[in-house]
């Protein structure tokens, strides 16, 4: 659900197919009958954008089902491993009480410093918290910050500990999470699901029953999703809704369970880990922000550290990161250079930046491995590009982004004169993946090293070459500057030149080995001493480590674990621990403590994964010489828990991090060690998933008539002529349209439309329309049609099929159409830009666009 796995992850889809041969049931919920549906035992059509209604329906069905209420497994898992029993503050008001919104909703007005955030509203999450005992006595955080206490920063962290939260293991308390969510989802009945999603009731019930049958002690079910669940104004909530359901079904932290994110670009996982995201620094620590209480190192730590989870170690991660940034210049006295670190002003994500660019607020842009000219409201995007003074494109091909200034439709049509575009465009030919050494990080968080297969032609250079030499030149340029704003850049360490004897693969190429070492981390005093894992990180500057989550992938100069290629022998339920290296700590299944029951024994033989071996004799600690008591977590995987922490171990009263959790709290990255059904903090759009309509929809919100859309979604460049959005049920755009991929092409198309072998497989842009609509509009197969949205109008050939069609939504017959979006004007196979139809609206948590559900009209050309 939420992905077209067979078409978009064909190699990974090998495994669902193997499971199918072993008798597993496969379900696909998708607006189209795709190549994945063709393999599934059951396909359920769903209107784009309505997944929360569907998942909410499942949740409602599950908590009221006989099986869930009679098999003790489910409650045992929910009460102990999730926050179902936790009691929520009495200030909290649910959508049930406030007709579709949660307590704490405020209006939002753009700050002058960065007026491109696009939020239509903003929540204050204060009222969503747990009901707690008063805070235990101890030094006050504010004083510690004022006193510049630490390193070590343990006292600071300890001072953050809140009082224990109230719980009701009977799940009866009206304000316990379970009762709240039961009420919250009560309206998500099968009938309602059918009305909103257009999914036939009988099919929906078959899905629910299949999930129940295949969940429990002895069986697990898994969900695999991708951007069908992200590209929405409430994408994050879709995924968290699925997580909620899976926690209720006991399908998290166990083999064959989980919520699988099928990530996109080959190393996109790596790019967010390392990270290229504006709002986080390495390892998903939040980027220092001018909008948060991040004035000083300790203030940042106080704001960002969760004292009672593994994140309690954040000071160690952060200081080691700062050491990697500023090296010797980072000392305890100057707070390890924290003040030099850049701070963000607001939403600097892709669309926000382009919204700013469109208003001439961005001078220049470096585009590396992206082709924005054909993605996300193409007209507006290209308008923004035209405002640039300079543009660098580094790519393997002359993409649409490199040629928009003389090839774009608006230029060809004469609406824009080439002479009026002042942008200076530079193109850098790039190497391809096989032409250099490096690592991929794939969907399962696994790093795999790849070796150069062949030399790149001509002047093609790697991206690391580009940044390495750019950085070296810039450091030269800034050398000797006394301006305080430049001190950060001057102090950045940049030691990636190959050592003597280490031959660069291209002239001026940095050493991939050194980059990996920087990421893995080493003893500050002796860089040849690599760090074995993040447990070794210190908050006093003695360790240097760019990315704590990657710490351990390169534990010794001669041990690059990402280059391992040893699969487990066939037949064993192996985790393939010797194939590549997966963060964190080479774990393959996260939170795998949950694969064992309270006593630490496997829930069932069939689902054995990680368990407690009480007889295990532990070796004495090398430093203290004292051997811990018998007992250890063992299994097929690396246990995601304190290795020798017994299942019956109580929390330490004044302990921080893992010491603050008991032996039965598997979710060690959560402040309460439990899976969150109700999300008290971290999401900006509410603690519970709620069905809203997409920014553009032909129907009203049946569940919350007073609240059509998410009250806090993002609408950038609102009111600007280049980003209009259609009214509810706008008669000019009566059809629901979704955009998606084909196996035969890759994203904006540069990597496939240039290739004869792939171009001939899908040579032209098309729109998939149902037979009923085709008949109504007198369109026959292969006819040219015009597709229009409030943002643009494009041409494509019609592919008339029963794999997509009409749905009964809110009593109306709604025609659903869909288009692959791979085309542009360059390459062998060319076609109109589908993104000329899409808009700049998106999700408030992660700022992704709503490309999956909007409205359009279709006319015979």
């Amino acid at each position: 659900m939420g992905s077209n796995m067979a078409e978009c992850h064909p190699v990974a889809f090998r495994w669902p197919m193997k499971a199918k041969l072993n008798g597993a049931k496969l379900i696909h919920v998708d607006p189209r009958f795709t190549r994945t549906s063709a393999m599934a035992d059951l396909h359920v059509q769903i209107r784009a954008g309505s997944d929360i209604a569907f998942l909410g329906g499942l949740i409602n069905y599950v908590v009221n089902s006989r099986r869930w209420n009679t098999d003790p497994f489910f409650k045992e898992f929910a009460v102990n491993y999730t926050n179902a029993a936790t009691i929520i503050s009495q200030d909290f008001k649910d959508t049930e009480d406030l007709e579709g919104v949660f307590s704490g909703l405020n209006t939002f007005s753009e700050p002058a410093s960065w007026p491109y955030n696009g939020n239509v509203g903003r929540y204050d999450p204060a009222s969503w918290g747990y009901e707690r005992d008063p805070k235990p006595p101890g030094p006050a955080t504010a004083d510690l910050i004022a006193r510049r206490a630490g390193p070590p920063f343990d006292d600071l962290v300890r001072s953050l500990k809140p009082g224990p939260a109230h719980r009701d293991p009977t799940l009866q308390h009206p304000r316990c999470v379970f009762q709240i969510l039961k009420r919250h989802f009560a309206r998500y009945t099968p009938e309602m699901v059918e009305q909103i999603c257009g999914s036939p009731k009988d099919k929906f019930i078959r899905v629910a029953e299949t999930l129940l049958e295949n969940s429990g002690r002895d069986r697990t079910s898994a969900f695999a999703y991708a951007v069908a669940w992200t590209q929405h104004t409430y994408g994050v909530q879709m995924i968290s809704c699925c997580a909620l359901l899976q926690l209720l079904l006991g399908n998290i932290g166990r083999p064959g369970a989980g919520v699988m994110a099928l990530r996109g670009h080959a190393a996109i996982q790596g790019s967010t880990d390392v990270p290229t995201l504006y709002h986080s620094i390495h390892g998903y620590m939040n980027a220092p922000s001018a909008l948060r209480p991040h004035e000083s190192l300790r203030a940042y730590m106080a704001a960002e550290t969760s004292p009672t989870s593994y994140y309690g170690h954040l000071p160690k991660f952060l200081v080691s990161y700062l050491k990697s940034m500023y090296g010797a210049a980072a000392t305890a006295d100057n707070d390890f250079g924290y003040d030099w670190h850049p701070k963000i002003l607001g939403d600097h994500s892709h669309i926000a930046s382009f919204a700013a660019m469109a208003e001439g607020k961005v001078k220049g842009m470096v585009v590396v491995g992206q082709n924005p000219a054909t993605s996300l409201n193409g007209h507006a995007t290209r308008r923004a590009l035209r405002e640039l003074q300079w543009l660098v494109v580094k790519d393997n091909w002359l993409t649409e982004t490199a040629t928009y200034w003389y090839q774009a439709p608006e230029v060809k049509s004469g609406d824009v004169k080439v002479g009026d575009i002042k942008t200076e465009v530079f193109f850098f030919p790039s190497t391809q993946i096989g032409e250099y050494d490096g690592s991929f990080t794939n969907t399962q968080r696994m790093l795999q090293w790849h070796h150069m297969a062949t030399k790149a032609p001509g002047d093609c250079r790697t991206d690391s070459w580009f940044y390495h030499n750019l950085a070296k030149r810039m450091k030269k340029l800034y050398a000797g500057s006394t301006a305080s704003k430049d001190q950060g850049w001057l102090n950045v360490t940049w030691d990636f030149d190959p050592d003597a004897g280490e031959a660069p693969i291209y002239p001026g190429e940095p050493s991939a080995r050194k980059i990996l070492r920087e990421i893995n981390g080493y003893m500050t005093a002796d860089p040849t001493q690599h760090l074995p894992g993040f447990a070794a990180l210190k908050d006093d500057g003695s360790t240097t480590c760019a990315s704590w989550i990657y710490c351990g992938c390169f534990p010794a100069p001669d041990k690059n674990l990402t280059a391992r290629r040893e699969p487990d022998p066939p037949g064993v339920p192996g985790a393939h621990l010797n194939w590549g290296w997966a963060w964190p700590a080479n774990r393959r299944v996260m939170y795998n403590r949950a694969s064992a029951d309270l006593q630490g024994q496997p829930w069932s033989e069939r689902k054995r994964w990680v368990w407690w071996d009480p007889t295990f004799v532990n070796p004495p600690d090398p430093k203290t010489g004292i051997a811990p008591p018998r007992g250890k977590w063992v299994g097929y995987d690396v246990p995601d828990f304190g290795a020798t922490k017994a299942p019956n171990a109580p929390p330490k009263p004044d302990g921080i991090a893992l010491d603050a959790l008991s032996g039965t709290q598997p979710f060690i990255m959560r402040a309460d060690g439990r899976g969150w059904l109700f999300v008290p903090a971290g999401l900006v759009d509410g603690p519970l998933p709620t069905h809203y309509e997409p920014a553009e929809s032909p129907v009203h919100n049946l569940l919350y008539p007073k609240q059509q859309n998410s009250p806090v979604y993002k609408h950038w460049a609102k009111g600007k002529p280049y980003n209009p959005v259609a009214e509810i049920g706008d008669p000019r755009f009566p059809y629901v349209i979704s955009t998606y991929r084909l196996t035969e092409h890759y994203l904006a198309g540069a990597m496939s439309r240039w290739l004869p072998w792939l171009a001939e497989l899908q040579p032209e842009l098309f729109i998939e329309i149902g037979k009923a609509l085709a008949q109504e509009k007198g369109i026959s197969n292969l006819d040219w049609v015009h597709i229009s949205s409030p943002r643009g109008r494009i041409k494509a050939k019609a592919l008339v099929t029963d794999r997509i069609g009409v749905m009964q939504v809110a009593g109306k017959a709604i025609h659903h159409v869909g288009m692959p979006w791979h085309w542009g004007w360059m390459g062998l196979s060319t076609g109109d830009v589908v993104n000329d139809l899409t808009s700049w609206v998106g999700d408030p948590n992660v700022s992704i666009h709503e490309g999956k559900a909007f409205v359009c009209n279709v006319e015979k050309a």
Partner: protein
Amino acid sequence: MAEAMGFFTDTTICIGCKACEVACKNWNQLPAEHGGVKEMSGDSYDNTQRLDGIHWRHVRFIEQFDGPYNGRWLMMSDVCKHCVQAGCLEVCPTGAIIRTQFDTVVIQSDVCNGCRACIAACPFGVIDMNPAAGTAQKCTLCYDRLEVGLEPACSKACPTDSIQFGPITELRARAQKRVEQLKAQGETRAQLYGDDPNGPLGGLNSFYLLVDKPEVYGLPKNPQLPTRNLPKSATFSAASAAVLGLLALVGLRKQRMDDMGGGGAGGGGVSPN
């Protein structure tokens, strides 16, 4: 001859990704139709349409629906069947087509002179000309790879193992099991095509698991050798030749009679010299 090698293609786990089609073109360096610049076919997701001289693998898409969302979508990766009794090999007048030590059927491109008899002879429409080479071409079952102990490029690339390569006897056993499994799961139409050594053409060294009639997948129900027609055809021709011969002689005879009967119509038949 070494052990007979071939393909078992389980169409029920084909996801139509066409990796096999591309892998084949890549390994054999086959050109794309019109360099890849062409119009879509409108026939589901099948834009290459057929096996021919530059498409040695072809993935077929069959949409079987009655009403929106209500039906199934069959996919099948087709290829040369490497028939145990091969029509193409039978007729080839240059001996370009040979049977290899792997019991596969290969066209030697350097021998072929492009007479195209094999094209019409193949019951499955597998062969066609490769315009670049001027010779008839088809799947070689990666003869060059087999010789060095490599698996064929297409099956290697197949992510779901819909295409399985191996010794035919093993593949047949595996295929039987799969059919039984499907039947048990209620897929009554599950059937093997070309697995029977006593069946048409002595069995196909590339055989298939189908869930509908062969014709639906573009496969003949009962493929046969072209020479089945030779005896009859030749006899009838000979017979008609004889008839004509007789007619001609009868004609002459009659003329003589007439002439003897003196002064029949027309001049006395005194030849000029």
